[in-house]
């Protein structure tokens, strides 16, 4: 059984279609399908710079974005998400956008939706520059909200030094009940699936069978925005 706190509204903020599949798909499927919690997924890019085109290729650099847009829509449907926002940034350029503009993008989403819980990456432990930039902007936007009114922020962390520096995850969600939904979400990103399996292997705990680790548990660290004060 999942022991998830009821939420007023959930906001997910990730830069790439498929980031959500491994990070939160089981947890979100539960919130949507078992608790009927409103969930908005803001995805910054269409993963335009995805490298997996196949050999022989099934896509080109120019046709990939539309393929991934459809995959993202299918993934959202698999989790039961009805409010999917595609924000129109370009893959691998998020960190080069104006910082204040990015904070404002997040602040506007938060102001509109008034989420009680936000899922994103954990700054400093998110590996990909787009992940880091996204997480920094979200956390800074939350930090500017008076403490009593702040939504909680759950960050995904998978840098190699995560356990060493952050310790065990603060929140460990057993999602085995929603495994089929998570698999469906992963499969929705068909153009990226090969890559994601490799990614999952990297994230899987040593000694723990792959399927046990990444299909049964989702792990989060609670972000304290004040730790990231500029």
């Amino acid at each position, binding site marked *: 059984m999942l022991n998830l706190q009821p939420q007023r509204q959930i906001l997910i903020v990730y830069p790439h279609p498929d980031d959500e599949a491994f990070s939160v798909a089981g947890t979100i499927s539960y919130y949507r399908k078992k608790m009927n919690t409103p969930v908005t997924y803001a995805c910054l890019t269409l993963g335009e*710079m995805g*490298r*997996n*085109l*196949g*050999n022989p*290729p099934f896509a*080109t*650099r*120019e*046709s990939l*974005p539309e393929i991934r847009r459809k995959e993202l829509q299918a993934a959202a449907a698999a989790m039961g998400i009805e409010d999917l926002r595609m924000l*129109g940034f*370009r893959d*691998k350029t998020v960190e080069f956008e104006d910082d204040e503009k990015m904070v404002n993008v997040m602040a506007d989403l938060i102001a509109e939706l008034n989420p009680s819980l936000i899922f994103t990456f954990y700054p400093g432990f998110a*590996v*990909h*520059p*787009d992940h880091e930039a996204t997480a920094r902007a979200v956390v800074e936007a939350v930090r500017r909200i008076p403490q009593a009114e702040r939504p909680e922020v759950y960050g995904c962390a998978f*840098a*190699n030094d995560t356990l060493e520096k952050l310790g065990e995850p603060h929140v460990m969600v057993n999602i085995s009940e929603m495994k089929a939904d998570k698999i469906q979400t992963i499969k929705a990103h068909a153009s990226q699936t*090969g*890559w994601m399996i490799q*990614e999952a292997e*990297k994230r899987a705990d040593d000694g723990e069978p792959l399927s046990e680790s990444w299909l049964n548990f989702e792990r989060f660290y609670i972000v304290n925005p004040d730790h990231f004060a500029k």
Partner: protein
Amino acid sequence: MQEVHAETLQTLLNSFAGKDVYIHLETTNGSYAAHYDEKFFNAGAFIRNAKISYEHAKVVGTEQYRVGLKMPHGWVYAQGITHYELDEFGRILMAGLDYSGKLAVALEISETPFTY
């Protein structure tokens, strides 16, 4: 995209010589390269919708090709090109796909700007 046929690609590239064209040039190891191998020095470069004109183009190599564009005051080249197509918008899309099907290099040429 199909595997490079050097003569056909050469003919296509010739047809853009002397015109104002937009290029997309990209090399990449992927953003996770140093995550999987911490000794890996990750480097890449990206330029999109730079407007250039080239005097001539040349395709050299076998299986993995080098494509060079000679400009009035400089050069553009890409190494490792394996596939290409003339797409529905009349653009030359060239890519180097590694043995696992991942893009390692791309060079694209268009008379109109690429999307954002």
